[in-house]
């Protein structure tokens, strides 16, 4: 009657992300925690709370929905669902989710913006070769002038034939 019933064992999980090696501890800023100062980490950073000052990591920065960063950000890769007031410099890929808000300049190599994400600032991406190249301008200019001269000739011809 009073036999001891064994409780089922609670499932055990590695924290914080299942994809990350259990021995690789990340830096996690919890929802009701506030960080002030030069916040830097050698590993991945997950921000769920508020950070002000500056943020720097060579790996992945994740800013979750509801989190806020009032700082310039530098990261290897970044996935933003919260808000950032400051410049964002990402050396590789920047993902902005539909809830993301960035008020500042963005500098990255690959940018993915979900519908609904808000950006207020200048976006600079490496690898673009159609702006600021004089030879390209000349080529474009020459091509355009050819088109123009040809069309003018054609107009003149058509006018002459009509007369």
């Amino acid at each position: 009657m009073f036999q001891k019933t064994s409780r089922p064992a609670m499932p055990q999980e590695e924290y914080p992300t299942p994809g990350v090696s259990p021995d690789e501890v990340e830096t996690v800023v919890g929802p009701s925690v506030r960080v002030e100062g030069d916040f830097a980490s050698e590993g991945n950073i997950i921000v769920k709370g508020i950070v002000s000052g500056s943020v720097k990591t060579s790996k992945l920065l994740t800013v979750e929905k509801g989190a806020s960063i009032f700082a310039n950000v530098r990261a290897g890769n970044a996935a933003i669902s919260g808000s950032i007031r400051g410049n964002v410099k990402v050396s590789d890929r920047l993902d902005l989710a539909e809830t993301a808000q960035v008020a500042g300049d963005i500098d990255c190599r690959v940018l993915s913006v979900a519908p609904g994400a808000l950006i207020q600032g200048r976006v600079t991406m490496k690898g673009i070769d159609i702006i600021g190249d004089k030879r390209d301008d000349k080529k474009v200019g020459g091509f355009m002038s050819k088109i123009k001269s040809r069309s003018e000739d054609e107009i003149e011809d058509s006018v002459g034939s009509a007369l």
Partner: protein
Amino acid sequence: MYVYLYDNFLKQKKYASILKTIETRLTDFGIAGKIIRLQSLSDAKELAEDEIKKSVSGIVIVGNDKTFGQVLSRAATCETLFGFLPIGPDNKIAEILGIPIGEDACATLSRRRKLRLDLGWFNGRYFVSQLHVFPGEIAVEYDERFKVTAKGKMELVVCNLQPFEWEGNGKKYVVRPQDGKLEAFLRPVVGHSWFKEVYEDPSIFPFQEMTVSAKKPFAVEADGRQSKETKIKIKLSKKRVEMIVGKERRF
């Protein structure tokens, strides 16, 4: 010759047979030595220093995580080789060091695979497994670079060797600390249930130096020893002790 420091709890009758088996195995391996039984008032540092003077080749701690912490927090300054024979429950550090529990640990000890281990240090004391600051209105400054605060009370756990475990959303989570750094787990108190405080999921910060301060004194527990402080500086003491470890170690 090794010196074996036996914890007081091993006096219990249920450990008699395992101790006998272990002592036989140690004799077989040719590493049996002097046995000292630790009492509640024994000073591990004094004992270790006395034995080092007698030119012992190493000090072996026999017991559980608490014994390990209790001995090394005092004896870490002694320049000698340490070994560990884990017996009974509460042996999580042994798993990290790759030392099997019970008689199989004798084989690991005989192989003498040596490694220098990092220890935590705070206010003049070493800690091996964990340091626990009980919930209070504390402010934490990391590596003199950034400061972490919360609206109300916060609990802080600093892990060196022992993993940090907690329960939430019906699951049990575990974070295994990495070598070369200390990990700080900060949990703000977000509410109260019937008999206990409700914590938020922890914030995690790996660090090398940290200062914890508060206006009122707060309780600190390191390796099972409690004290009250108003300001503590926690540091990583790299490669502080030389230890015999197993092949299956986690670092």
